[in-house]
């Protein structure tokens, strides 16, 4: 995995002190945050980044997701050069430009989404994958633009479209311009819908805010990963508003399926065949 080898300082050879925080996955072994088993990283990665003991689904970067989902070597990336330009000149405790530079250095990407053509089990599709590693997968103008371009290309080329959401929501540092990406992407999906396109939306942990309230919930088919947290308002905001404890399992994928908002919870190792099946049934 690219990100693993991009981080030499965290490999066991250069590490001199024992790591205390085993919840932060580094090194050759890691502790599963769900079942506490010590697991061998390589095995975890080979099993689509899930715990071999309890099937806990680890959060993956866009690159890791693409690597374990699409046919090897089939991903043809588009618009990788698009970068944010800070039109608001936003500054909080840290200037947005500085924050962006740090995130770009950390992830090697210009922003928090990768998009392109790919094949899954030999079936061509357009795919867009949000990257939580980049500013919590937040949607600003670049993410919105890349999704919109992917939708428009899928419309033109009559390809099935898949968007994998993993995001805290709209990006505050681009304010209303981020908000407007919800309208822009949804408008593009309206046209794709009119053209008869198949849109598969996969919600992974976490999917919140303006992402849930736009393209993520507009799939012809909406899949979610097991136990993924999905919602509009964050659980803390809700708890503060209603001044009460939230019910157990609130906003999990299982909860959403129970409430009727998700078609199917798909474990990661079944995702490829599940997508292929939907594409075939929809004659796409």
């Amino acid at each position, binding site marked *: 995995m690219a990100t693993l080898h991009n981080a030499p300082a965290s490999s066991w050879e250069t590490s001199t002190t024992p790591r205390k925080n085993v919840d932060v996955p580094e090194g050759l072994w890691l502790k599963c945050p769900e079942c506490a088993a010590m697991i061998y990283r390589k095995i975890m990665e080979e099993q689509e980044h899930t715990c071999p003991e309890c099937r806990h689904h680890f959060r993956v970067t866009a690159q890791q997701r693409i690597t374990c989902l699409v046919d090897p070597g089939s991903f043809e990336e588009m618009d990788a050069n698009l970068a944010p330009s800070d*039109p608001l000149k936003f500054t909080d405790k840290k200037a947005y430009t500085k924050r962006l530079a740090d995130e770009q250095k950390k992830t090697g990407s210009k922003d928090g989404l990768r998009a392109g053509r790919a094949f899954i089990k030999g079936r061509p599709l357009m795919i867009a994958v949000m990257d939580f590693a980049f500013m919590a997968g937040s949607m600003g103008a*670049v993410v919105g633009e890349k999704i919109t371009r992917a939708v428009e290309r899928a419309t033109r080329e009559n390809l099935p479209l898949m968007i994998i959401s993993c995001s805290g929501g709209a990006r*505050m540092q681009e304010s*209303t311009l981020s908000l407007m990406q919800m309208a*822009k992407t949804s408008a593009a999906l309206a046209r794709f819908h*009119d053209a008869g396109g198949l849109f598969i939306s996969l919600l992974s942990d976490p999917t919140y805010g303006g992402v849930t309230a736009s393209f993520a919930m507009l799939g012809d088919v909406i899949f979610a990963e097991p136990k993924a947290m999905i919602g*509009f308002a964050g659980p803390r905001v809700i708890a503060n508003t209603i001044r009460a404890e939230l019910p157990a399992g*609130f906003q999990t994928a299982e909860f959403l399926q129970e409430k009727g908002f998700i078609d199917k919870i798909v474990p990661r190792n079944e995702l490829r065949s599940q997508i292929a099946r939907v594409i075939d049934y929809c004659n796409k």
Partner: protein
Amino acid sequence: MAKTPSPPAFSLEFEKPILQLEKELANLVNLQETKDVDYAAEINGLRTHLTALLKKTYQNLSAWETVQVARHPARPQTRDYIDMIVKDFDEVHGDRTYGDDKTMVTGMGRIGGHKVMVVGHHKGRDTREKIACNFGCAHPEGYRKALAKMQFAEKFGLPVVTFIDTPGAYPGIGSEERGVAEAIAVNLREMARLKTPIVCLVIGEGGSGGALGIGVGDRLAMLQYAWYSVISPEGCSGILWKGGANAADAAEALKLTSKSLKELGVIDEILEEPLGAAHRNPRAAGDSIEKYVDKTLRELKRLPLDKLVDERYEKLRKLGTDAVTA
């Protein structure tokens, strides 16, 4: 005996000198009327002074002060504007899915020379109404009611006019259980392709997705002292400044005023408010809205529906493209 105007009971910090003057003026007017003394010169002097102070104060409002004006308890709300400018308003309910959300007002009526479908958030004016309206925070059924009525409008050729005034969609258990995110998402998609003119007006607070859920259309206009942002200044301060104390800084950074949003190309038009904002003269704010809606609908109705929807797409498509570099 002539009625003495009483100063508003609620005062914003930066409005205190104004309210003081308004009080003095009211006293003088009262004296003149009751004691039969001629204070005309003094009254005129005070009026001039007051006008100058209002102008000065309102010309230099900070973003945070603007947010406070937008939240002023006496600021006209959707139902006030309906009373003022929508003739023969005929409210309709019925989301056809769950229940009637009092936060979302929908109904038919006439604005200027146009028969329209009105859709708007209502925050509530007295305590009882505020509670019934959840202080302007709509539930999913509110967004679904809005969509049902907009689709009705499409079918029968009525343009849609939306009044946006919400701190945000309701963050609660029922709201999530019934899919508030899905409801908003569907509204965005459907409003983008609705085959009838849509004019959206931010009249007070434009709180994020809850505002956008009835905010996609051919034109987006904002009252001068309304705000519109991806998150409230308090929410943004809480996350980025790790505490609510920097709301004023956040308000500034979020570029949420009508002036900033016009410059950023997010809104089409700023609707001027009367001197000292809409709460001082609701009728004038209503006139401003009525004039804009009438003029805009006349323009939009000239377009064939296919062209209208294509142009709407092009307008939405451009949003934020200047914020992207290749």
